[in-house]
């Protein structure tokens, strides 16, 4: 099976050349994050992912997690890998320096996350969930709770989880039943069952901090009656070491299609002691601050797996000798040509490649605004970036996992029967990627978030942060002949997106089902248009550097941009037609007719 090599060259291109990464150091608090610091971080992350995490990817999948006597064991090698991961400081890179974190910019963190996901998504789930718990606690916890728990989450000696789902409620959290009873001393006793809890139990850390949604006795019905609680697996002693067990037990672990080395647990809370995080009944708000970070991170999972699959497919396509090129033998000295000579294999590889490179750019565009939102001195800029992130979050999550899944499927297809068997690890990427389209809000929910919430927000103000720069770019470059092959198709896609946006907003006002019926196609149209814009900009940069291109990187970039403009972007036309056709045919059948 092929190894994994972190795509550092392309990452640096996106970071420094496309997204002006050198400007990061001008933001207050980011002064030290120059290339001199960032490049070694990326290289070190690449080494860890290539040498420590990736070799455990297939074995972890084969072995899976086990539950014995109520204790979850991770696959062989995971505890040791986690020790190295933790000691290397990787649990703390995106955390607040006030609690021992390294405070790295989001743009750097996204690249590191991508590498981890490429190398071993199951492994990445454990620190990933801890980070979600960290964010919720950091943004909403009391000072006392933060002082007690954040340093441990940051240095990775303790892990975290997010406990939302219950057997009867997933998307509709308003139905949840877990109850929290105040004890009069500031603590609460929690009772209830949570399912699908990623990293719910494991043997990587000495303690696990669960962030649990539950209802107070006087809570109003529905989502307005949900509060967030912190419930440790072991109650800490005064000195901070883990103490007695706290009424949290693992009832079962799920048997899943993919990410088998990530323990997905049923957790039972039985009078477990917990503390309120944020205000009573305002748990959803605390949840969402975590969820927004996590949704971008899940998008990056799709990207990471697509990259890994691409690498595997390319390696195989170069080596596998079968038949001859359609125009006659390309390698007459060999018994057969490598399959990379075939247009249809090329098609699949180009789809993967263009997907990976542009999705990386989209994730980084969003990360750039996360950094501006967090660090820019001008409140107006911060608010604008917040708008951008709010708008793009559902798109990044759904588009990158949908396209990522399609890309892993292409990767498997390139290998034919050898992709379908386990040996090359290609089918694992497909299986691992599939969950990313489902959890943290299914991609259908992301599409509803986009059309139902983000489109109508403040008269469409968040839209401005995307549409205005793209419109200005098109206006500016429309007459540029060198760019015409990229900008003119982009302009077409953009007009389609404008019209579809107006139509979805209009139709949604009079009939929400129209917006619901358009949502997924609209999100894809939006996403592809965003990628088309990024391709045009990437092509523009690459074209300017054709003369100094010893390794052919920029030439390949232009060629891939061209592939996108000619072979992918036209999908916007079909999506546009589907959106504009309206939702009648979707809703036409009687329920009984299904």
């Amino acid at each position: 099976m092929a190894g994994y090599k972190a795509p550092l060259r392309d990452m640096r291109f996106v970071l420094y050349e496309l997204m002006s990464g050198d400007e990061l150091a001008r933001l207050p608090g980011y002064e030290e994050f120059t290339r001199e610091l960032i490049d070694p971080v990326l290289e070190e992350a690449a080494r860890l992912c290539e040498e420590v995490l990736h070799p455990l990817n297939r074995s972890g999948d084969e072995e899976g997690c086990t539950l014995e006597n109520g204790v979850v064991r991770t696959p062989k090698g995971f505890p040791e890998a986690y020790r190295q991961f933790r000691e290397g400081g990787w649990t703390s890179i995106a955390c607040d320096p006030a609690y021992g974190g390294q405070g790295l910019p989001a743009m750097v963190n996204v690249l590191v996350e991508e590498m981890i996901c490429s190398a071993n998504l199951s492994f990445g789930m454990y620190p990933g969930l801890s980070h979600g718990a960290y964010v919720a606690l950091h943004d909403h916890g009391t000072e006392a709770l933060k002082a007690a728990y954040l340093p441990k989450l940051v240095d990775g000696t303790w892990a975290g989880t997010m406990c939302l789902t219950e057997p009867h409620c997933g998307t509709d959290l308003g139905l949840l039943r877990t109850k929290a009873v105040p004890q009069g001393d500031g603590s609460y006793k929690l009772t209830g069952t949570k399912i699908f809890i990623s990293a719910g139990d494991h043997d990587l850390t000495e303690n696990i901090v669960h962030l649990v949604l539950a209802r107070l006795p006087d809570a109003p019905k529905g989502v307005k009656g949900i509060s967030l609680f912190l419930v440790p697996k072991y109650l800490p002693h005064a000195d901070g070491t883990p103490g007695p067990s706290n009424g949290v037990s693992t009832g079962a672990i799920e048997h899943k299609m993919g990410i088998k080395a990530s323990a997905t647990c049923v957790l039972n809370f039985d009078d477990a002691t917990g503390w309120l995080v944020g205000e009573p009944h305002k748990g959803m708000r605390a949840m969402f601050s975590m969820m927004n970070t996590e949704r971008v991170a899940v998008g990056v999972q799709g990207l990471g797996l697509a990259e890994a699959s691409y690498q595997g497919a390319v390696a195989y396509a170069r080596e596998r000798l079968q038949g001859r090129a359609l125009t006659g033998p390309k390698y007459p000295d060999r018994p057969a040509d490598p399959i990379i000579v075939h247009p249809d294999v090329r098609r699949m590889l180009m789809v993967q490649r263009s997907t990976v490179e542009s999705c990386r750019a989209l994730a980084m565009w969003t990360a750039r605004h996360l950094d501006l939102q967090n660090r820019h001195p001008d409140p107006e800029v911060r608010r604008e970036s917040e708008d951008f992130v709010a708008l793009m979050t559902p798109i990044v999550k759904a588009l990158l996992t949908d396209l990522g899944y399609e890309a892993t499927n292409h990767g498997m297809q390139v290998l034919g029967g050898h992709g379908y068997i386990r040996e090359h690890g290609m089918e694992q990427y497909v299986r691992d990627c599939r969950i990313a389209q489902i959890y943290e809000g299914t991609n259908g929910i992301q599409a509803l978030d986009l059309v139902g919430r983000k489109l109508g927000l403040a008269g469409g103000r968040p839209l401005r942060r995307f549409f205005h720069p793209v419109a200005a770019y098109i206006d500016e470059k429309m007459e540029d002949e060198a760019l015409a092959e990229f900008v003119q198709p982009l302009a077409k896609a953009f007009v389609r997106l404008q019209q579809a946006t107006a139509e979805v907003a209009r139709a949604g006002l009079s009939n929400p089902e129209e917006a619901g019926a358009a949502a997924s196609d609209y999100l894809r149209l939006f996403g592809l248009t965003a990628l088309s814009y990024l391709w045009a900009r990437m092509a523009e940069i690459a074209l300017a550097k054709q003369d100094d291109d010893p390794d052919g990187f920029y030439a390949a970039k232009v060629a891939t941009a061209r592939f996108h403009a000619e072979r992918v972007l036209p999908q916007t036309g079909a999506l546009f037609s589907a959106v504009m056709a309206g939702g009648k045919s979707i809703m036409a059948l009687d329920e009984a007719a299904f």
Partner: protein
Amino acid sequence: MAEIRKVVVVGAGVMGAGIAAHVANAGVPVTLLDIVPAGAPNRNALAEGAVERMLKADPAPLMTKAAAKLITPGNTEDHFDAAVGDADWIVEVVTERLDVKQALYRRIEAARKAGSVVSSNTSTLPLASLVDGLPESFARDFLITHFFNPPRYMRLLEIVVGPLTRPEAVDTVSRFADMSLGKSLVRCKDRPGFIANRLGVFWLQAAVVEAFARGLAIEDVDAVIGKPMGIPKTGVFGLLDLVGLDLMPHVNASLAAALPKDDPFHAFDRPLPVVQKLIADGYTGRKGKGGFYRLNREAGKRKEALDLATGEFRPARKAEVAAVAESGRSLGKLLDHDSPLGAYAWRVMGATLAYAAALVGDAADDIEAIDEAMRLGYNWRWGPFELIDRLGADWLIARLERDGQAVPEMLRLAAGRSFYRVENGRRQALGRDGQYHDIVRPDGVLLLEDIKRAGTPVIKNGSAALWDLGDGVACFEFTGKMNTIDQQVLDLLVKTVRRVKKDFKALVIYNEGHNFSVGANLGLALFACNIAAWTEVEASVTQGQEAYRALKYAPFPVVGAPSGLALGGGCEILLHCDAIQAHAETYMGLVEVGVGLIPAWGGCKEMLHRWSTLGRLPKGPMPAVAKVFETVSTATVAKSAAEAKELLYLRPTDGITMNRNRLLADAKARALAMAESYVPPEPPIYVLPGPSAETAMAMAVAGFRRLGKATPYDEVVSGALARILSGGDTDVTETLDEEAVLALEREQLVRLVRQPGTLARLESMLMTGKPLRN
């Protein structure tokens, strides 16, 4: 029939002064008299003071400052005999004491001329006792005209006529009240509280007493007994703060004294010590230190609400009422909701609706009078019988029976059917005889509501419709939210011009919304700007300009008939009409600068033309430009149709109708009269001053900015306006046509919509309803 040419109002309190002001609004001279205050150097101090206060009051009792000149203040010693002797109508608005009123009536009877009419604005005293012991000649000319506060704005006038009152006297006053004062008249029987207050006070008292008994939060009460019932959002406690808490005990006492022992009112008439203490402490409502709600200035203008249980103020909170949230739009579900507020809502509204039914035959002859009184006197969206129809008469009967409450006879009559129905396109009401009777509109009242019920539109789409008013006149109606103007309205307008040309003689633009139109649909405009749809934005500007121009030059007369707000694009469409017949309560204005825009559907072009032709200004192009700049750059809104004439939003020749219900008939008549020999207007030619004037206006705004009267972005928007009004790069030796001015409007609008400052203003207006001063 006698006409009312001169009026005397005796009593210059809030109501008396307000009635006098409204008579002046109608253009009729009025003398306002009050007593000579003891030891006052100015013997007219009371009446003069009242007029002065009214000139400053908001909402303004007077439609223009000039109307105040029609009011002659005086006193009841020096001016009484002369004024009363000269008056056609004498309105008594003095304190609610029988002896005081009767003594005054004797003086009036001695001084007034033959054929004059006397009326009282009493709200509590029966007509029978008012005329008791007075000469028959007085009783023959006497009636009760009960106005509601404030008299200019409240459309209800309750009329009580005695057995001796001359029909001609009633007709004279009724005609004047209807045509000149614009009131809707409701005939009441001579019973305590007449109709509106009899039922309204019962409702309020029941709501207050039950809220105290159940210890409810007043915010929750106002949220339940308010919007869900079509009752103004002030609800119960907010309304009491508005009318004054100190009024309650008086009104209750007089009703309690006058009503028979078995009247259901007595069940709710209990003393409320907490309210008595509030009044004693000066918490008489908004006119005092606050009432049930107050602003705590010590706590940083915090809004506070009275805790009914403790009598103490606490921070106000947002109402959270499950009964409302979980009932959707179903009133029945709300009244059946299993919660303290659901039970409360039923207790109050069940009793009120049953009481309303019991008043038929007692306070009123028919259900329409009661519904009309509550709609116009208390601003209920639906009268009590309309509410019962929404609930279902059978539902109400069953619920009353289940609770062991009496079911009034009138309600029984409606069992198995409804109080109102539509039969052959006509609305009918259930009478006491158990039969349905057509609701007949008076002569000169034409309602689009009736036309719509009886037929289908000539053409329509999602935002507008065209109706046939008969006699060859068509009526264009906006139907979108807040009657905003969007692409569909403009589409239909263009189709309308074609259709009217073919099938009709004239067109009226009219609707029966609260507001004629608040202008272009800003939500769509902002959305289009946010998605950078600049081509569409420009196209919509062009489309509006072309549609309005098509209207102006159509080969048939177009009469605009606005009422309420006519802002922005809603004002501009009126500027393109051949004539306007405006309801007196029309509020026109080109307010675009408030949202960072400029009038671009021909508003600048029309206003320039008006001020240069009708403005009676000094010679040269600059005075008209300056006048329009002043009006538009400050987003001036006329506070009445009369004021709109001063601002030339209306022409001197445009008509004003006082009675809302007569507006459409007046507009139609005007359109027909014009159709006889109609010739479309000649396109105007403009001579505009050019860049030097633009600079001068920009400098003026810069000056305001230095004084802190204009914001940085005001300068940008005013600059765009100055560019248009000065004519761009023209100079006084050149002439411009309409297209040239329209092109300037387009150019500046398209420039402004790309500015973040404009987008921020649009967003603020849409999200908060408040202009952003950036």
